[in-house]
């Protein structure tokens, strides 16, 4: 099923939590709503489910506005952050609930329900757990029961609210690829809410980056990561350095040094964003690169973290991967040169420009 959100807005009292939301999730697509807490992503998900109501705008399921339809009539599968399993029911009864409560005319026969529950538990790799109670399961198992329960009603769309939030790091990673495969297999339109960028980028076909009730960018993960639409997206994805620059006749100037040349840009003050791992450290006597001095070096296993001061005065953070480290580590006081591999320039007038040097 296709999900469409059109010019949706909502406030709690005088606080605007969502405004002008436009979103289009295609049939079978996995969409991630990514943003910091308070960005309105969970509220948006709950509006799609019918657990909250927007003041204006449309929620379209296959082109039909369901904004005024009750939650129980929307046929959505919802996995709650803390699973919301019925604590006094067994795993079997939890999964069967959506079928058992149907009116007699629509209810499958008992044997049929048992068969479907068995299938679903097989699907979530919990066959044999029918008789357990939720408090006898681990976090990952509970999560899969919640998923099976949501799938039992054959939902038109699957909504997941921070589904991995309560799991520890190792289980989270396993669940992630498992969920990804399952979603592909079922070809079920799905929307996931998360504040974890790795999760969003890895799982989703398309990512909507949200902040302060707005969708800042909605695109495939590579685009969102490589070509952030706004400084905020840059900030949120992969902690970037932010440097004040000047754009003059297409050249981007940091102090007096030319950092990059842009095809077309008006002259203005601007900001350059560059991620700490998109900077290459060169020897102090290299022919190119920005001059800098090491303030502090922190060894960190996979990469070494440097705090540097540029010649014109601003500070920059750099992560140097292990393979790029030759010989001795740099120490405080050493001189180096920097090359910016990937960066973005954002100006008040100029809009955004992305550059790759080298």
């Amino acid at each position, binding site marked *: 099923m296709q999900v469409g959100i059109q010019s949706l807005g909502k406030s709690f009292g005088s606080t605007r939590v969502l405004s002008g939301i436009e979103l289009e999730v295609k049939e079978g697509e996995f969409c991630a709503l990514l943003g910091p807490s308070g960005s309105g992503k969970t509220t948006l998900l709950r509006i799609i489910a*019918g*657990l*909250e*109501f*927007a*003041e*204006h705008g449309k929620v379209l399921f296959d082109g039909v506005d369901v*904004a*005024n339809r009750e*939650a129980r009539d929307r046929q959505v599968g919802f996995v709650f952050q803390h699973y919301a399993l019925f604590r006094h029911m067994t795993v079997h009864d939890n999964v069967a609930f959506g079928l058992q409560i149907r009116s007699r005319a629509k209810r499958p026969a008992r044997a049929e329900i048992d068969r479907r529950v068995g299938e679903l538990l097989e699907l979530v790799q919990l066959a044999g757990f029918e008789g357990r109670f939720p408090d006898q399961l681990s976090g990952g198992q509970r999560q899969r029961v919640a998923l099976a329960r949501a799938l039992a009603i054959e939902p038109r769309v699957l909504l997941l609210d921070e589904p991995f939030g309560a799991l520890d790091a190792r289980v989270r990673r396993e669940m992630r690829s498992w969920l990804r495969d399952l979603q592909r297999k079922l070809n079920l339109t799905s929307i996931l809410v998360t504040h974890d960028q790795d999760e969003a980028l890895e799982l989703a076909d398309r990512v909507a980056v949200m902040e302060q009730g707005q969708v800042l960018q909605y695109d495939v993960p590579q685009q969102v990561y490589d070509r952030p639409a706004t400084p905020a997206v840059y900030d949120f994805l992969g902690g970037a350095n932010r440097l004040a620059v000047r754009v003059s006749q297409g050249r981007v100037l940091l102090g007096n040094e030319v950092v990059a040349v842009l095809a077309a840009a008006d002259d203005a003050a601007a900001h350059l964003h560059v991620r700490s791992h998109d900077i290459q450290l060169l020897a102090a006597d290299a022919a190119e690169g920005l001059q800098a001095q090491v303030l502090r070096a922190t060894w960190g296993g996979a990469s070494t973290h440097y705090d540097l001061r540029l010649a014109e005065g601003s500070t920059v953070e750099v992560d140097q991967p292990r393979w790029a480290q030759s010989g001795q580590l740099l120490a405080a006081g050493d001189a180096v040169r920097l090359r910016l591999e990937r960066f973005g320039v954002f100006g008040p007038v100029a809009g955004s420009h992305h550059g790759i040097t080298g």
Partner: protein
Amino acid sequence: MASVHTLRQQRRVLPGFGLAMGVTLAWLGLIVLIPLAALLAKSLGNGPAFWWKTLATPRVAAALELSFFSSLAAAAVDMVFGLIIAWVLVRYRFPGRRIVDALIDLPFALPTAVAGITLTALYAGNGWLGRYLEPLGIQIAFTRLGVFVALVFVALPFIVRTVQPVLQDLDKEYEEAAASLGATRWQCFWRVLWPALLPALLTGFTLALARAVGEYGSVIFIAGNLPMVSEIAPLLIAVKLEQYDYVGAAAIGTSMLMISFVLLLGLNLLQRWLRKGRL
């Protein structure tokens, strides 16, 4: 558009709000609010001057004074012993602890009339305890002291049961932190535990006071009910009713409610101030 907005905002995900709310308001209105309104109407119906005249008689004034002062005293005494009992129950292990814990609620569960005649049997001049106290010149039954003793009995669980859970939840880490900083046990208690317990103690005091002021059954048997001496306000209401003095009964009832309200409000404000200022 505006109407559409409000319509959508008013929507609720779960059903049954209207029904549940309707039943609640009907129940509250019929059982509590309308009858209380009848009390106010009756007592103030003849004008405030008439109301005041009823209250200003020495007998009524003495009864109100006795009710409120003996309740304050009983709640204060229970605050001390209730804290000790709660402390002992939470922090120490000793034989019979569970039975003591379960029986703390006896005054909740024991009908007040039973408590009343029992306390009288205990403290009367020829009673179980009275016979040893009387020779010492301590007379409890049929005096103001009897009122006080009965109220101490009635109000005790309120203190214990509000302090106990707070004491249980108090993380040992605070004390350990204080101890690691070189505090003595007494400093630990006074500077770390006491400020955390005080709000609960005050809540307990408030509940105990509210219950004691209105107490009837456990008091009237032991008090002797001498007008001007050991006659509590609730009893005076019952007396007025027996004499068909409905306006008088209503006037005493209203003034009891009003004094209680002011006291409880004051205690609530004190508590809010404590929360803001110290915790």
